[in-house]
């Protein structure tokens, strides 16, 4: 059996992947924003994170894509789910939205997106005459982080910040002795 009657889409595979990823990311993000159950919102967020990681990979930012998965999905999301599980004891703590406020938020969001879309659409960015393969950047990132001329100081400061956040979070989250 021949499949010749189907249009040849092989040249469009990158585009198809992009649109698939973009649709998944945006739909998941909207789900995360409006899902009535907080657990569903967390899973929507996870799908959005994966989609964003896919977009990074399409942009040739391999290292950032992996970091995205490791830090966001592996770290922050797990933390969030912990937060959900630890605080979802009672129905009252769900915090269901009031319809009016929700409508207001949705309208504002839609208007803002509309305006931003027009702004983006009407701007012409300089573009390369022909698209080339993305260049590998992981090694360059590694060198930049450890080069005193470039990013070494911010890098170290970031680690101090993380330490401070770690200690602060541990201090805040410990249970007070009932007194």
């Amino acid at each position, binding site marked *: 059996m021949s499949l010749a009657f189907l249009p040849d889409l092989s040249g469009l595979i*990158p*585009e*198809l992947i992009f649109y698939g990823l*973009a649709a998944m990311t*945006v739909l998941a*993000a909207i789900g*995360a*924003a*409006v899902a009535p159950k907080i657990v569903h*919102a*967390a899973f929507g*967020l996870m799908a*959005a994170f994966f989609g*964003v990681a896919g*977009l*990074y990979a399409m*942009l040739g*930012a391999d290292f*950032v894509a992996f*970091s*995205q998965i490791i830090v*966001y999905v592996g*770290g*922050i999301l797990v933390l*969030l789910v*912990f*937060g959900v599980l*630890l*605080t979802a004891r*009672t129905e009252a*703590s769900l*915090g269901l*939205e009031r319809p009016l406020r929700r409508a*207001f*938020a*949705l309208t*504002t*969001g839609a208007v*803002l*997106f509309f305006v*931003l*879309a027009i702004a*983006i*659409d009407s701007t012409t*960015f300089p*573009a*390369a005459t022909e698209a080339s393969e*993305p*260049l590998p950047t992981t090694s360059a*990132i590694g060198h930049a982080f450890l080069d005193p001329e470039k*990013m070494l100081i911010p890098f170290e400061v*970031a680690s101090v*910040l*993380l330490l*401070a*956040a770690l200690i602060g*979070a541990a201090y*805040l*989250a410990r249970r*007070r002795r009932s007194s």
Partner: protein
Amino acid sequence: MLLAAVGLNHYLLVGAALFCAGLVAVMSRRNAVAILIGIELMLNAANINLVAFDHFRAQIDGQPVIDGQLFVLFVLVIAAAEAAVALALILNVFDTRDRIDVDELDTLKG
């Protein structure tokens, strides 16, 4: 044609959509964890823009451009720190009040 070649604009649009979704979550939710989810979405939107600009700069220059990606990595670090502290705060509030509705946290009201 529907499937036009993917350019910078497309990525920026995805970023804008993600940002607005996050904003809606922050504005409409009362659960503190859900607000945190919205903030993470907005940070991701910014990151998409940074990486996209990087990529298309590199296409023009013909050599790797990593400034935006470095920023993204720093944003990741900040986001991790922020999520940790925020969740510690949320747990604390939950311990004392048994709920995490941010509308009730108005002790500072003038």
